């Protein structure tokens, strides 16, 4: 199947129907929870104005990050079509997670990269299944443990302490807190390091079909340009956010940096 026809299949009406149906179902769940919470708030004597403020502020707060997520759909659409990334990023997923898992699954089915040029229907369904399985554990834990865990937390009055334990990439120097957050950050450093190192190794010793070999520098250098461009772009976003106090740019930092990196790939491949 050519890359054009696989993308046609991945963008076909039945796939839109399946993915759109699940998204619509999740939207209905949100509406049910929203109405129940609003009614419960009124019944418990909460101020209607306060609740309306929460709804308005949450809606406005979410517009910019949602546009950032949409850029992620565009980024993944070239290899996985539009409906599946639309589903994954509307429900449950996040761009950085989806891309990593999709790449790992692509490797397992024998693709050298996550691209439509190599994609097959079976590769796609395998990638889609792995994406679903890898991040379902928050939901699984919710089903089995949410009630008991919340009961235990409220009983032991430790809720306030837990609330401060948010996960941040650069908190390794924070002396407070346990090792769990640090271990997670370290794990992500290892994960990112593995891929960056593979691009370096691929350039230095890869490209066997072009007469490459160990230290022959005949491998593909485009991924390195892409890594550099997106890293520089991320540095710029962080500079804007931290030095220029433009916190809203954080919403676009990952997706925006990816678009810059991908644009660099187009430019150097012309």
């Amino acid at each position, binding site marked *: 199947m050519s*890359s054009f026809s696989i993308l046609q*299949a991945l963008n076909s009406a*039945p796939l839109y129907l399946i*993915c759109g149906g*699940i998204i619509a179902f*999740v*939207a209905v*769940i949100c509406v049910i*929870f929203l109405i129940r*919470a609003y009614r419960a708030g009124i*019944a418990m004597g909460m101020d209607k104005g306060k609740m309306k*403020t929460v709804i308005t502020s949450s*809606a406005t707060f979410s517009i910019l990050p*949602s*546009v950032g*997520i949409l850029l992620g*759909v*565009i980024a993944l659409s070239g290899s996985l079509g539009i409906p599946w990334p639309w589903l994954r990023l509307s*429900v449950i*997923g*996040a761009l950085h997670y989806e*891309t990593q898992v999709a*790449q*790992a*699954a692509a*490797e*397992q089915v024998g693709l050298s990269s*996550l691209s439509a040029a190599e994609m*097959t229907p079976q590769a*796609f369904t395998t990638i889609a*299944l792995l994406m679903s*399985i890898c*991040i*379902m554990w*928050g939901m699984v834990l*919710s089903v089995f443990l949410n009630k008991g865990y919340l009961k235990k*937390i409220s009983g032991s009055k430790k*809720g*306030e302490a*837990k609330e401060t334990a948010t996960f941040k*990439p*650069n908190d*390794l120097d924070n002396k407070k807190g346990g*090792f769990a*957050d*640090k271990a997670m950050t*370290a794990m992500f450093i*290892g994960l*990112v*390091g593995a891929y*960056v*190192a593979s691009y370096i*190794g691929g350039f230095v010793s890869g490209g066997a079909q072009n007469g*490459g070999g*160990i230290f022959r520098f005949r491998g593909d250098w485009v*991924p390195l340009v892409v*890594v550099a461009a*997106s890293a520089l772009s991320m*540095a710029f976003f962080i500079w804007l956010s931290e030095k220029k106090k433009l916190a809203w740019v954080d919403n676009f930092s990952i997706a925006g940096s990816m678009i810059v990196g991908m644009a660099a*790939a187009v430019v150097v491949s012309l």
Partner: protein
Amino acid sequence: MKNANMNDANIKNESTYFERYNDMTHVLGRIFTTIVLVMLVGAPFLIGKILGAMPDLKATAKGFLSVGIIWTVSSIVEFLVYTPMLGAGGSYLAFITGNLINMKIPCAVNARDTVGAKSGTPENEIISTLSIATSSLVTVLVLALGVLLLQPLQPVLQSQVLQPAFANVVAALFGAMAYKYFRGNMDIAAIPLTFLCLLFIFVPSLTSSTSFMIIPGGGLAILISWLKFKKRNA
């Protein structure tokens, strides 16, 4: 005295009402989460039936062992940390709709700060549910509109000129994340990165199984982080 008794009765009624509301939230949360789980895991098989190619379960299992374990641990940590913050309704919704760190958590915290609700209170339960439900609906709406607008752009997105961009989407992600994670943590990242570079340079065939190299890379980074942690707390 009479007024005090009436107040006590009101508080008791409110408390009973909230308990009933919360119990029903758990019932609905469990049912809906289970249905969505079945839908999400079932969708690849349904798509497989349409495309005439079922998922390769062996490759899925291998992929899960390489990268899924990390996300499983990450999911457990997220569950333990965020559930008390979000309350019952908010956490069921947040784990169904995803985008926790980049959107749902800041959105719920912002909403809670706006009205001054305290964690663990009935008010926080309501506020956080309202906030996450609204946020999820906005994302669904923005993405649906975006996908609709993307339709005329499909020929452009599938053009040959843009293919290098989509072929390098993973490199683009890791470039951005490398800056984010390595920045300020180079003392932890330097050794695993050097080790992995040498490994990929001297054994180039390993590039086809990069995801497995996350295990030694991550293990090494955790070890260094642990040593640093121990030294600081000694």
